[in-house]
């Protein structure tokens, strides 16, 4: 099976440790993974702001980078959702039938990390160790667009030493919402402040989620509050093998 890592633009440019963590987990599980260097951004920021024409070259780049792979794995529910549900809209807009065909072929092969580990590899225990208290926020697109269900929690429960604490009102959006975070900054922050409060109520040391964008938003609020709670991507926790005091690079 030829597996490609779709690292996402935000992880590539801002949170490279998330991409490295995926590589670490895959190597531990004996999965050979490629990083097609042509990849850039899935185009979601443009599509969700209404700039469909501007997303066309990005979808072309996506297709060029990932065609030919059996599986495209990404540490993001949101970007997986974009590739699976929005690329067809962009291809339709381009009027290029060839692009539409290529998108239809690739889209179903795009997997969010927890889906790939649990459904394709059939693994829940990835051999990680992380002796810390953790609360998990299910990001909206992984939960409601992809339907990943409890796969991330199953992966977390199998991590040695990890204590998973339930997050109150876990399924409520954190308020990031892509360009919403800037266009409607006040509402975004009001939502994020409530999410941060619920996180702090759990008393957990670490907030874990499957999307770096949501974590950048809630994490930015938590550090501004000097909350002393760190945020980590699911992949980073699954890559950990150390004892107390490891992990938490943000």
């Amino acid at each position, binding site marked *: 099976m030829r597996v490609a890592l779709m*690292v996402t*633009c935000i*992880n590539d*440019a*801002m*949170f*490279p440790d998330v991409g*490295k963590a995926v*590589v*670490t987990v895959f190597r531990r599980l004996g999965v050979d993974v*490629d*990083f*097609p*260097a*042509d990849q*850039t*951004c899935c185009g979601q*920021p*443009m*599509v*969700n*702001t*209404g*700039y*469909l024409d*501007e*997303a066309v*070259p*990005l979808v072309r*780049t996506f297709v060029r980078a990932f065609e030919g792979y059996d599986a495209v794995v990404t540490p993001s529910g949101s970007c997986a959702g974009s590739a699976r549900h*929005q690329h067809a809209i962009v291809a339709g807009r381009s009027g290029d039938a060839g692009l539409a065909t290529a998108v239809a072929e690739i889209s179903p092969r795009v997997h969010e990390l927890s889906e790939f580990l649990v459904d394709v590899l059939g693994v829940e225990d990835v051999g990680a160790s992380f002796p810390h208290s953790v609360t998990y926020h299910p990001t*909206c*697109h992984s939960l*409601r*667009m992809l339907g990943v269900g409890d796969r991330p929690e199953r992966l977390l429960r199998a991590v040695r030493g990890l204590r998973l604490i339930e997050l109150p009102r876990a399924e*409520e*959006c954190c*308020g*990031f*919402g*892509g360009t*919403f*975070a*800037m*266009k*409607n*900054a*006040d*509402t*975004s*922050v009001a*939502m*994020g402040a409530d999410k941060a409060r619920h996180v702090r109520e759990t008393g957990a040391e670490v907030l874990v989620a499957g999307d770096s964008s949501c974590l950048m938003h809630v994490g*930015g*609020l938590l*550090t*501004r509050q000097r909350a002393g709670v*760190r945020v980590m991507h699911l992949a980073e926790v699954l890559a950990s093998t150390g004892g107390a005091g490891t992990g938490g*690079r*943000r």
Partner: protein
Amino acid sequence: MSRTFLGMPPFPAAAREALADPQLRSNLAHATTTIRAKRAAVVAEVDDWESLRLRAAAIKDDVLLHLDEHLLRLEESLTARGAVVHWARTAEEASAVVAEVARAHGVDEVVKVKSMATQEVELNEHLAAQGISAWETDLAELIVQLGDDLPSHILVPAIHRNRAEIRAIFEREMGRVGRPAPDDLTDDPARLAEAARLHLREKFLRAKVGVSGANFAVADSGTLVVVESEGNGRMCLTLPEVLVSVVGIEKVVPSWTDLDVFLTLLPRSSTGERMNPYTSTWSGVTPGDGPQEVHVVLLDNGRSRALADEVGRQALRCIRCSACLNVCPVYERTGGHAYGSVYPGPIGAILNPLLKGVGHDEQTDSLPYASTLCGACFEACPVRIDIPSVLVDLRAQVVDAHRSGVPGPEALAMRAAAATFGSGRRLAAAERASALAGRAIDAVARITHRDRRVGGRRLIGRLPGPGAGWTDARDLPTPPEESFRAWWKRTDGGAR
């Protein structure tokens, strides 16, 4: 008379004001949390909820596909049952029909059943301009009307008010328009309801003309249906001699069998009840029973425009249950007024632009962006309106409507991003520049002693310009020294 939504600012500004109101935030959080829990409990009781949703969506889609035929059938049935059918293309035409009926009967007041369509056409204001008072009789609409306020929720228009505020409004305003509130009024819900009953009873017994909307219009029997909780609607529908109902053309359902599906979905989705207390149905005129003159105004007012929108037409399935408002994390914090329309919340964010069209005014164009696209609305919608997809499509329509003008900062940024993201090579160059910027920020931070790190990563405190939108309330990490792609290349995927 009462205020209208005309001249409301775009969503972000209106929301900013609402977010700063602690009373509003607390009232909304309490009300939406309560109603969400009630809805979840009664929806969970229905084993085939998902298949009911699918059926409802299919019925509505079929109606919309053959809307002309169903409407003609409805007109035929209504006329055969003694009702007078009027067709209204616009809000003005609909209001004119109601005013004409009132004038023909020489009255200067009408009593109203809670109705979204009459709110949408601003019927009360149109009637007031002609010297006709329209009395709202739904408890919450009465609170809004007495308080010279605007509705903030489809089902619970006074959701932004608490008991103490309602008591103050009753004490201050009831006497101006009818029977005053009792001297010893408290904020006990039963006492408040009693005050409203006494006040409204006079109006029910006096009014000659009643005005309503309809939740459904059954084409094959010519039956209008009003679903309500309080019984005030039943009073308005049965006591006056004349009844005028303003009904959106999308309200038609083919038969009573179809109606059954919606009467199961609606109360559970809206009030969180298995069944609503009052369901009134009437088919034209019944001699010796109820109004002896019945008018039905079939209202377009932008619905044909919405119907022509391939992605957006599913919004016409809406049965105005307001489940999407109650589960929406944006609505819960901003309340309904921020949406600047009688249709607030997620459904309002798509319905208003669909009815009015985009590219004409900033307020309407701001609505499709009033969402994080979290999808909670789609999950709760009993007729499966994919609100997030419609929002995204409407955003594209807003952007396209402005493509011919001078590009703004956002459009320029999107074009620049599209160019950068056009190839991996260009993105790598941009990332090298961003690492340099990160080093510069680090240097400044060290010099100014604003050096703050979390987990080894330096944080940007506050940025000037457009970056302030993020950093006013949130930290941002500085860009890393090395991007993922640079690391992969340098280490051959971590092998070195």
